[in-house]
């Protein structure tokens, strides 16, 4: 019943490729290897060292305070004892105490954490309180007191003292982990089958905590070694039993640092730190596996400036094809209703052969492949597709928000401002990009809860935009603008002082829209803005968007998997599949006569509220694995109407009925392969 930590990442699909699934890779990471080697060397030293070096670490000779020499590789102490011999014997005591206390501490933490997390009610609260109290009590003074009562008790006493004072952190971590596992389905299932609590804890929960237990264990070993050193350094342990801490005690008591006898106290401290570092490195490796985000991306984003620049120059040389419609909207301002641009407006954004790749794994994953689109002023362009189709990646590419390993590999993105100025989005410098962002293109994310900064008020987050882009605005003016914006989306202006968590889901999403409109942008990219909302709220948000679009005249790129919503809302719709646009048509055409078998399937998978009743068919199969796309049409394995040629020939986007602007990428409409004329005549799956 082991849950691999990557299940969610895999389910998220190729939109987020990269995290390697193999534990082996984590273990073989250079950091972990270094850690294992260091710890291995010291363990060997502790185990075998005293067998090879028979000298007595306490033997007093007349060779006092000798610096390192061939005879004494690490010099001698004030009593003429050999430092290297002491170091080797010290390794044994220090590592022994460290590992023994680490094991005891972890067992105790596990007992308290696991039972405290699994049980509920008063006993659980009590255990948690118990752990929290011990967590806050400063460890060292407590250790000192306990050790003082057990003077010269040797390793056993020290181990007990360290365990008693050091278990609380691990118990807390393990409790939190158990609490989250307890609610998982597989634990519920085990409970439903009548397994006893002890069995569930041991067989269902414990195996899933192995990584965290290891991290806790290694952490407690480090802290046990350090604590032992502190106790010994304070002279509270048996000072005739050689450990690295005892060596430091004698060095300090004899004033080694004043006598410049560095060889005496430098090696034991380095040994402690090296073991600590080694164990920490192993922990980092485990952390990386548990939490793939921490793994460094390795590559810094590097744009192909020269190439993009050349593109933008070429663009400037060419006069703009069509001037933007200049009408009453030229005087557009907050709250002033300008004439809607309508679908007849000029081009505001043009994408040409855009290609985005994720370059992290063995082979690059093409999340957006050869996409060309045109957005007209005042138009709502819908982009539909399943999760993993590349639609969100496209949205982030247009706003230049891609992070490594995702990067724009080729293609052009041209923005045309209202005054006809053309801007190559990919070629903007960081400074220009900051000015361009939000001023021309703003974005609304799917989950407003995650997209709003939880520690700033709504007003501050809108105000931030104004402060960055309108440095001339006075504080009072900005506050007035914030109130106007909130009012515009139907939020009471006095909510400007509210924090995101104090608002309802629908309000948060409308606040996001208000924020998106703060600078009167030409384009608002909406990435699944309604997906996380229930149907009623969804309706309100959609109405807010269309209403505002009509008054303010901005263009929208609306991304969703909800095709029926797009058909109601949009002027033009692009259907994406496996990173490509497979069909591009007006909303009406797509609804009446979807061309691509995939579009036909999608339309068959949603009921409409207003349209005639029909059978829901849906799309068979699962979204493709972006790492292993078929050679021909990516949809071919799921396509109910696939031709023989589809497996080997990638279809191009064509316009099958020339006066009609609808285009489709499917061999069924390619005259070269048309032995299936029904594709043209019947309207697809919806009879």
């Amino acid at each position: 019943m082991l849950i691999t930590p990557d299940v969610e990442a895999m389910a998220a699909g190729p939109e987020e490729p990269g995290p390697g699934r193999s534990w082996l890779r984590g273990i073989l990471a250079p950091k972990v290897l270094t850690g294992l080697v260091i710890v291995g060397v010291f363990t060997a030293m502790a185990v075998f060292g005293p067998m090879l070096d028979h000298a007595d670490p306490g033997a007093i000779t007349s060779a006092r305070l000798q610096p390192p020499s061939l005879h004494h590789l690490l010099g001698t102490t004030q009593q003429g004892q050999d430092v290297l011999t002491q170091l080797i014997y010290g390794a044994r005591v220090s590592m022994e105490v460290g590992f023994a206390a680490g094991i005891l501490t972890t067992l105790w933490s596990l007992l308290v954490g696991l039972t405290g997390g699994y049980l509920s009610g008063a006993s659980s609260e009590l255990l948690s309180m118990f752990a929290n109290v011990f967590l806050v009590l400063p460890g060292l003074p407590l250790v000192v007191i306990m050790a003082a009562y057990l003077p010269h008790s040797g390793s056993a006493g020290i181990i007990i003292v360290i365990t008693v004072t050091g278990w609380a952190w691990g118990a807390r971590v393990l409790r939190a982990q158990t609490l989250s596992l307890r609610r998982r389905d597989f634990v519920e299932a085990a409970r439903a089958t009548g397994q006893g609590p002890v069995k569930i804890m041991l067989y269902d929960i414990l195996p899933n905590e192995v990584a965290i237990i290891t991290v806790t264990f290694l952490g407690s070993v480090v802290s046990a070694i350090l604590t032992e050193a502190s106790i010994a350094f304070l002279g509270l342990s048996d000072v005739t039993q050689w450990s690295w801490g005892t060596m430091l005690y004698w060095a300090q008591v004899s004033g080694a640092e004043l006598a410049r006898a560095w060889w005496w106290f430098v090696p034991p401290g380095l040994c402690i730190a090296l073991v600590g570092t080694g164990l920490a490195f192993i922990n980092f490796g485990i952390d990386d596996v548990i939490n793939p985000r921490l793994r460094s991306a390795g590559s810094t984003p590097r744009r192909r400036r020269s190439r993009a620049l050349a593109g933008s120059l070429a663009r400037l040389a060419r006069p703009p094809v069509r001037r933007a419609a200049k009408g009453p909207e030229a005087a557009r301002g907050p709250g002033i209703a300008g004439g809607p641009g309508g679908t007849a407006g000029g081009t505001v954004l043009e994408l040409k052969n855009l290609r985005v790749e994720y370059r992290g794994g063995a082979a690059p994953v093409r999340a957006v492949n050869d996409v060309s689109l045109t957005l007209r002023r005042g138009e709502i362009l819908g982009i539909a597709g399943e999760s993993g189709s590349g639609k969100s990646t496209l949205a982030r590419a247009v706003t230049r928000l891609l992070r490594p390993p995702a990067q724009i590999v080729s293609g052009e993105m041209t923005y045309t401002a209202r005054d006809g100025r053309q801007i190559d989005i990919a070629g903007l410098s960081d400074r220009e990009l900051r000015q361009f962002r939000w001023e021309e293109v703003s974005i609304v994310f799917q989950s407003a809860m995650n997209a709003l900064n939880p520690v700033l008020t709504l007003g501050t987050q809108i105000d931030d935009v104004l402060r960055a882009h309108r440095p001339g605005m006075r504080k009072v003016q900005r506050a007035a603008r914030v109130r106007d914006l909130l009012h515009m989306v139907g939020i009471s202006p006095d909510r400007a002082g509210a924090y995101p968590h104090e608002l309802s889901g629908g309000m948060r999403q409308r606040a996001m829209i208000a924020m998106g409109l703060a600078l009167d942008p030409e384009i608002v990219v909406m990435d699944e803005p309604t997906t996380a909302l229930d149907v009623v709220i969804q309706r309100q948000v959609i109405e807010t968007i269309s209403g505002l679009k009509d008054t303010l005249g901005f263009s929208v790129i609306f991304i969703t998997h909800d095709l029926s919503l797009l058909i109601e809302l949009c002027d033009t719709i692009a259907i994406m599949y496996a990173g490509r646009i497979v069909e591009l048509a007006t909303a009406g055409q797509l609804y009446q006569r979807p061309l691509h078998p995939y579009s036909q399937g999608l339309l068959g998978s949603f009921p409409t509220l207003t349209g005639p009743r029909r059978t829901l068919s849906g799309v068979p199969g699962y979204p493709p694995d972006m790492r292993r796309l078929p050679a021909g049409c990516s949809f071919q394995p799921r396509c109910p109407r696939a031709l023989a040629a589809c497996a080997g020939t990638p279809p191009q986007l064509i316009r099958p009925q020339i006066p009609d602007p609808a285009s489709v990428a499917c061999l069924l409409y390619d005259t070269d392969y048309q032995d299936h004329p029904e594709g043209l005549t019947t309207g697809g799956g919806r009879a």
Partner: protein
Amino acid sequence: MRVMLRRLSFYAVTAWAAITLNFILPRLMPGNPAQDLINRSAGKLSPAAIKAIQVLFGQPHTSLISQYLTYWRNVVTFNFGVSYSFYPTPVIQVIRQSIFWTVVLIGLCTIIGFVLGTLLGMFVGWRRGSWRDALVPVTTFLSSLPYFWFALIAILVFAVSLRWFPSSGGYGIGLQIGLNWPFISSAIYYGTLPALTIVIASVGGWLLGMRNMMITTLNEDYVLLAEAKGLSRLRVMFTYAGRNAVLPSVAGFAMSLGFVVGGAIVTEIVFNYPGIGTVLFQAAEGQDYPLLEAIFLTITMAVLIANLLADLAYIALDPRTRES
């Protein structure tokens, strides 16, 4: 407000637990610490001092409950008896003389270490895959070093070899302690090396924690949105990413504080700094149980107060906690 009350009651419980632990420990330990102490004094102690010792460490022929009550009365009135290692100074006076040094030195160093480590962690986490990542193994190594070892090295290099700073003590000999410039400047001069040691040794832990949180936070939508808004890089880094990434560090302050304070106290010993750490060392060496116990209570209370302040800071930083 309710959150605040909950935290306050938690600290009250913790304080009670610490004080009670202090009562139970000597009674649990093998042997009879109270009789040990009385025997060791060889008749030097006054009957009142003997009584105080018995209240703290175990009275013969008295029920535990009444012992506990008398113990509490002594704790509340700061009556911890007479110190052995500083005989015949009362324990409370020994603590009063040393606590100021510790509060100033360790208090300042902890705050500086936290601020510095958090800022550095923020910068390292902000740009991964750059040279700054090399700081991670270095700081891991630094944070694995025992503080006192670091102190020994600092003395060897800066006090013995370079002679930049004195190797021990808290101020120049013969100076009048008080608000006069010669004393204050001397205290700063003597305190610099211990302070540097504590700051450098504690910075690594904060740095690593903040770096990891920063990397996690940078993946949040609100950071991406802040970038999309065209805000300046500093605004995104501090107000959107950093402000949220620092929250776990502040919440984890309690856990780390005990560790930092422990390390700092041992550092005092190496520098023979006139603070509570050095006194603790002398008390442990001389098995001066009355002083040990009182120091434990003092440090615990100081740490609890610091934690309470950290909690207040957390509530100020995170509006979500302010909800009822």
